[in-house]
């Protein structure tokens, strides 16, 4: 303890941050971080245990590792591949459509703004506040009428509308970063629209597009309610497939953890790879 106090007094003398109890706060940060990641670590560890070792009390942390859980998940009952591929299709296609629609819209709300652009922007945000469950029934009845039930394109349509407001807000905030002077300079030099887009706007906005795509992909991949109501055996997505684990089925914990890990893996990978983009995206581009 005495060394800690000593260190802090010397720190205070320099204009650096004063840190009384610094090591203890660092330790606390580590403990909190470990507590938060523990369920994820436990999920991964359990997925590599045998079913018997997974269901012990107290927990068998050092039990031998096995791939049985994964084997059972991939080839035990119904194959998870069609749902995983459906999720991938729905997420990727809807993200592309969202980008194609939101980029020009954001351009018309920032670079060359229409009149009342703030009202338009807030209209987009307000659709995000309306409870999705209220639109569930009409969409279901429409799908039934049009023969689109259990069709992945219906989900793509819905995911596009779910993410479009977020994307418009994000893209607008990124586009408004483009310095006015640069646009004017390009105009003076006689650059046409395409050239301005390519040489002035694209370099500033490309990271924003990546952040937007990441968020839209994650939200579409995670969605459960609509996928559950609007799909059945053909267009079933991965989260719907997971709901078969809601009721307990004897010794199934290792298999459940394997399933949860496999389905979360794309989001975990994308999210960790683009941590800084995550913040921008979640705050609709307002935090950079």
């Amino acid at each position, binding site marked *: 303890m005495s060394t800690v106090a000593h260190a802090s007094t010397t720190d205070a003398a320099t204009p650096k941050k004063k840190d009384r109890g610094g090591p203890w706060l660092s330790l606390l940060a580590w403990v909190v971080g470990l507590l938060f990641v523990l369920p994820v670590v436990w999920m991964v560890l359990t997925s590599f245990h045998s079913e018997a070792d997974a269901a012990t009390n107290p*927990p068998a942390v050092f039990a031998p590792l096995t791939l049985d859980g994964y084997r059972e998940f991939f080839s035990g009952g119904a194959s998870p591949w069609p749902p995983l591929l459906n999720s991938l299709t729905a997420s990727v296609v809807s993200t592309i459509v969202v980008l194609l629609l939101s980029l020009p819209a954001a351009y018309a709300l920032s670079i060359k*703004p229409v009149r009342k652009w703030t009202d338009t922007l807030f209209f987009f945000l307000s659709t995000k506040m309306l409870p999705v*469950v209220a639109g569930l*029934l009409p969409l279901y009845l429409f799908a039934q009428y049009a023969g689109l039930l259990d069709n992945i394109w219906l989900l793509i349509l819905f995911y596009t509308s779910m993410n479009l407001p977020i994307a418009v807000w994000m893209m607008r905030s990124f586009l408004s970063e483009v310095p006015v002077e640069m646009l*004017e300079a390009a105009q003076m030099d006689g650059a046409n629209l395409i050239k301005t887009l390519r040489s002035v706007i694209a370099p500033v906005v490309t990271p924003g597009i990546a952040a937007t795509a990441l968020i839209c992909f994650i939200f579409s991949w995670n969605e459960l*309610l609509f996928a559950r109501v609007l799909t059945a055996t053909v267009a079933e997505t991965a*989260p719907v497939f997971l709901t078969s684990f809601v009721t307990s089925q004897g010794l199934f914990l290792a298999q459940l953890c394997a399933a*949860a890990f496999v389905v979360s893996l794309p989001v975990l990978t994308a999210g960790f790879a683009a941590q800084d983009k995550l*913040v921008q995206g979640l705050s609709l581009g307002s*935090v950079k």
Partner: protein
Amino acid sequence: MTSVAEKSRVGTAGTPPPGTARRASAWVRRAPLLPALIFMIIVTQLPFVATLVISFMDWNAYYPDERGFAGFDNFVRVFTDVNMRDAVWTTILLTAGVVLISLLLGLGIALLLDRKFRGRGAVRTMMIAPFLVVPVAAALIWKHALYNPEYGLFNGALTWFWGLFGSDNPPQPDWISNMPLWAVIFSLVWQWTPFMMLILLAGLQGRPLDVIEAARIDGANSWQIFRSMTLPHLRQYLELGALLGSIYIVQNFDAVFTITSGGLGTANLPYTIYQIFYQAHDYGRASAAAVIVVIGTIIIATFALRTVSSLFREESGR
């Protein structure tokens, strides 16, 4: 509103040409916006019109012959339904509980991570992990791998901990049955604290450090600096986190559906409406409930939007 628009982009807008040319140029400006706008109007506004119409109809898929006009019957049934009133209350508790707790935890952790220490990046990465688990998967893990009274990790840890002191009689509570709503809230707090932490950490790192340094040299202590400088600076980030968190958590379906299946007093509004529609197939009543929820949301959202637009004005005023 328009004054903000003109102020912020006056440089590129230039002076609008008069007459028909002006109208044409207005349409040129509008054109890129139209696909997205029309798409949103068709996909989000039309269904609500349909919901409104159906809410005045007798329509139950189990009795297809009795379809017809019902007047306000559905609304009366929704308002007199005890389950609906409970659902409103549950939704408020669930949303407020998750948002407040995760915001406070997120603030604490953001302050811890705003310091330089060994492994800061690693701790940050660990903190983000819960948010990157698919919500259904996370709810399943909490339900079966953590809360389960026989082999869940929580009771397993209790057994192990009691065993350290030589006791073979550890408490083994049935977490979900004993405190169902809190079980749902905790699992959601676990997922949403990283979200709040990330936004607040970004806010902390945008603080004007020179001013804080000056205050410190003038002899202000850490608590004074936090109270009178950090917290006011963080206000808009706290509001942003609360608002976005509320938007998502008010609509939560996954955790309620997975952990308790809406039982034990945890059915929130989305789950209740889902049940009326998906299990009872009472389309009229589900629509009436949806209309009431939409009206309630509009009232609350008006306040929320006012908050965002005030933040927004600060931003464009910069």
